[in-house]
């Protein structure tokens, strides 16, 4: 049960990462590797501020802001300096590694007794249930786990709803169109370059916010924590699309949350079942590869008999 709740909570926190990856990869078809650096950036900024006793809400907001800056940097490299999109992301990600070390002052920053959203959720849950633990379906669940889980759920839902609403505004629809058909939206008076910068800022802001929350959950920030996170987010998106389809943006956003949680659950179960943690990234990459290749393979298999039928 502890394993499940933990996996659920991390999955929910990382659904913000999935939202960010959705904006860059799906809306703009922009393979933005900045994410690996910006999730750590968010963790570093939130961690340092929390150590300095800044309120967790403020620290998380600062993480968002820092990520947005990193995303804009990638966007400006790509649009103003005409650097290939992938390379822009790699440049910013590489630079962020040093920046993150500077922000943290060391490679690992533990959060000991600082007030974080975890401790706040813990005390709120204690007040609510009146004890330090409770029974859920016959399992003992601590108030900390229960509180953090509920908080993460609310956070993922609120951000998801806000994102959905954003893409229903004039600015949001223009951003979608900029990714869908740049020529068309330029002819309707929108500066596509600005939209890309803004989109990457929003994307990396969400990703950094995810990092800021993750640090508060796991109790430390680490300069290595971002490695492979883009692929992680992409896997979540792909699972989500397989689960609920892509008919409507609302489905995609809900799918991203579900995909993120499910992916984390699978990983947790696999690790428990004896998977060597060192193989985790290899298997994640393999999974995304298969998910990317599978649809076209299936189509080829489906098309072959159709041609026979025609002749």
């Amino acid at each position: 049960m502890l394993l499940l709740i933990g996996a659920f909570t991390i999955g929910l926190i990382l659904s913000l990462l999935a939202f960010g990856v959705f904006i860059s990869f799906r809306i703009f078809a922009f393979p933005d590797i900045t994410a690996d650096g910006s999730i750590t950036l968010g963790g570093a900024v939130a961690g340092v501020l929390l150590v300095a006793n800044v309120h967790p809400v403020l620290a998380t907001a600062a993480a968002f802001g820092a990520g947005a800056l990193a995303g804009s940097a990638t966007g400006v490299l790509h649009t103003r300096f005409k650097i290939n999109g992938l390379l822009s992301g790699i440049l910013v990600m590489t630079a962020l590694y040093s920046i993150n070390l500077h922000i943290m002052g060391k490679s690992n920053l533990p959060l000991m007794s600082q007030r974080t959203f975890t401790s706040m959720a813990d005390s709120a849950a204690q007040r609510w249930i009146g004890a330090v633990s409770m029974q859920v379906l016959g399992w003992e669940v601590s108030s900390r786990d229960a509180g953090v889980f509920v908080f993460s759920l609310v956070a993922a839902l609120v951000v998801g709803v806000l994102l959905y609403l954003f893409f229903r505004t004039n600015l949001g629809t223009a951003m979608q169109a900029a990714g869908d058909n740049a020529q068309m939206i330029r002819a309707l008076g929108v500066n596509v370059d600005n939209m890309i910068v803004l989109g990457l800022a929003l994307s990396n802001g969400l990703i950094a916010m995810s990092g800021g929350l993750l640090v508060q959950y796991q109790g430390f920030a680490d300069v290595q924590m971002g490695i492979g996170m883009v692929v992680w987010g992409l896997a979540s998106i792909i699972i989500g699309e397989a689960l609920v389809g892509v008919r409507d943006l609302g489905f995609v956003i809900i799918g991203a949350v579900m995909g993120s949680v499910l992916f984390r659950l699978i990983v947790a179960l696999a690790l428990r079942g004896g998977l060597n943690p060192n193989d985790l990234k290899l298997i994640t990459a393999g999974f995304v590869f298969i998910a990317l290749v599978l649809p076209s393979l299936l189509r080829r298999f489906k098309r072959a008999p159709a041609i026979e039928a025609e002749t």
Partner: protein
Amino acid sequence: MLEVNGVFKTFNAGTPNEVRALRGVDLTIDDGSFVIVIGTNGSGKSTLLNAVAGGFFVDRGTIRLGGADITSWPEHRRASLIGRVFQNPFSGTAPSMSIAENLVLAARRGRPRGLGWALSRSMRGEFRDRVRRLNMRLEERLDNPIGSLSGGQRQALTLLMASWLKPKLLLLDEHTAALDPKSADQVIQLSDDIVARDRLTTLMVTHSMQQAAQMGDRLVMMHRGSVIHDFRGAEKQRLRANDLLNRFEEVRRAEQLDESAADMLRRLYV
């Protein structure tokens, strides 16, 4: 009013692929005039349209529209004055977005886009009314993604979108060339209707001599990056597709001479 003055444009200047696409184009179009542009391949007619739309900046010359000098305006800024329909029916609409969302985008052409709600109930009513007038039964499919429509339907919607907010200038760039004959007829009819109803100042490039003869109140013929014929008023109305073909034949004959000789002959006889 559109004023194109002495516009030059050379692509890939100084390389073996150098193309002198526009070589001193002068063209003034009065408000409410519907001008057809024809020309051989590589004559610069689409380049001229692109120069006006802002797809690139011209090397020399000025472009003024509605009293403003737009020569140095980027494409997205010119969009506040210009409505466009492209040759490729897939260029003018966002395929993964719904018809209604595409119309919403067009309804704010050239206007600031903030965090206001994009699609309101009252707008949907107006969308339905105006889409119904296309007679394509699309008004019941406002929430379908545009990517699921045919090229003709998408081109008709692009036309509707380009003219949603009355533009100072409507640019039609061979907008029926990629359509099947029936859809092309439909879109041409629609273009005529919309231009006439809103009295839009229009610049239309076409390959079809029939369209060139039947549509518009003025016809401009381009060759080698400049305007070589300009028919207006009664002269334009008398033009038939055959006359135009003959003109092309003349041009082709002149082509067989070298350029300076052709210029001389043109000065003497045309």
